[in-house]
């Protein structure tokens, strides 16, 4: 696919679209990976919030069984998301009860399909997808491949968030099946302070900026400053 025909959607992350030719390819699946506290859920919500601003429907799947009100408390301090959009422009689905009861990956995929067909979102988040690996009784890589195929068929941009383990730079098994990998990390500056960084590791069909770039968090959400390390 050449640049002339690839549609792109804004990421919602301040400063990021300039790093990737204007936005995420549409449709596509994006892995946003990082250790705890690096901003993965904030990234995902900011992505959905941008969709709300553009009049799009979003769908947020959580695998952590957080009730909606806990999620709303989490975003209270951010100005990028209107809480009233939860339940309307952003549909919130808790996969936790389903995962605890049903270990069959085909049934899980059918349930996800069902939720997507119900609201036909343009933006989807599964946060975090890595939990599913420990709960489905099957080849996890095959499940991820099927999940990716299903998601692409619905023609949306999907963000999968994944925990990074100490032993790996990013969730390798997920990175194979996605179109893009964005890595969020923590690092120490020369002054000894801990800062957040964003790096686009891969993005198919896109000339993207490489390397780690400073990521700031404010009430307006995440802001990446390309070129600043």
């Amino acid at each position, binding site marked *: 696919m050449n640049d002339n025909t*690839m549609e792109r959607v804004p990421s919602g992350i301040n400063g990021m679209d300039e790093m990737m030719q204007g936005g995420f390819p*549409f449709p596509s699946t994006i892995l946003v990976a990082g250790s705890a506290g690096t901003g993965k859920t904030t990234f995902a919500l900011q992505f959905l919030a941008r969709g709300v601003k553009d*009049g*799009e429907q979003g769908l947020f799947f959580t695998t952590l069984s957080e009730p909606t009100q806990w999620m709303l408390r989490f975003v209270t301090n951010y100005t990028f998301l209107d809480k009233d959009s939860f339940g309307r422009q952003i549909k919130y689905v808790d996969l936790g009860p389903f995962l605890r009861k049903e270990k069959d990956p085909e049934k899980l995929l059918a349930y996800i*399909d069902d939720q997507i067909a119900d609201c*036909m979102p343009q933006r989807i988040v599964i946060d975090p997808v890595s939990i599913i690996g420990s709960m489905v009784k099957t080849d996890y890589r095959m499940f991820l491949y099927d999940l990716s195929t299903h998601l692409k068929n619905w*023609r949306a941009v999907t963000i999968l968030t994944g925990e990074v383990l100490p032993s790996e730079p990013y969730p390798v098994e997920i990175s194979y099946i996605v179109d893009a990998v964005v890595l969020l990390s923590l690092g120490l500056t020369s002054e000894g302070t801990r800062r957040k960084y964003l790096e686009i590791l891969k993005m198919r069909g896109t000339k993207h900026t490489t390397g780690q770039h400073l990521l700031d968090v404010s009430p307006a959400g995440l802001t990446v400053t390309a070129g600043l390390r």
Partner: protein
Amino acid sequence: MTQKTELIYHRLRNVLGSPPNVRRIFITVKAQSVTRTDIAVLRVLLTEMDQKGVYITVDRPEKHVMEILERHNLASHADVSFVAGPPQRRIVIATGVLSPAAFFDDLFLRLADPRTRPGLDQELAGMKFLMVDNLSSLAAYNGPNGIAASFGRISQFLNAYPSIRFVAVAARDSFAAVRPGALGFLDMEVDIPDDWFAV
């Protein structure tokens, strides 16, 4: 239904209610709204105008098409057939992947072949619309020759069935790649503004 959604339906009703000589209609929208617009077009054609037709999808599996039709109350399993399936249904669905130009060649040959299904020719003669979902994928998977060949096949089909109108929803930006091959083909091009799709 919001006021803006009603605007969209009003425009679609006007377009789809065009005089019979307007037989090749392209509707352009932003990429993220293509599927939503497909559903709206199907709603007008199937439920409001009570028409029968053919729905060709280039890269969506049959299962997903059925889910969309059922979930949005457009058609049930009893209403739907596939190319070689039971006759006399309200909508015939044909799905293909990856190589739309070759798929179109194969599909329209099958549609024209009486061995595909007895009575298929008569059934098609009673249909009113042919929809293609979606032209952006056609542009993504084929060069200009492939796109022109696909429209050539569709033209032959429309010539064989004068009661059928062609309708396609396309992503505005990628339609630029399709338009050169479609210039000699289209009768009407309609754009729906982005802000009409606000949820």
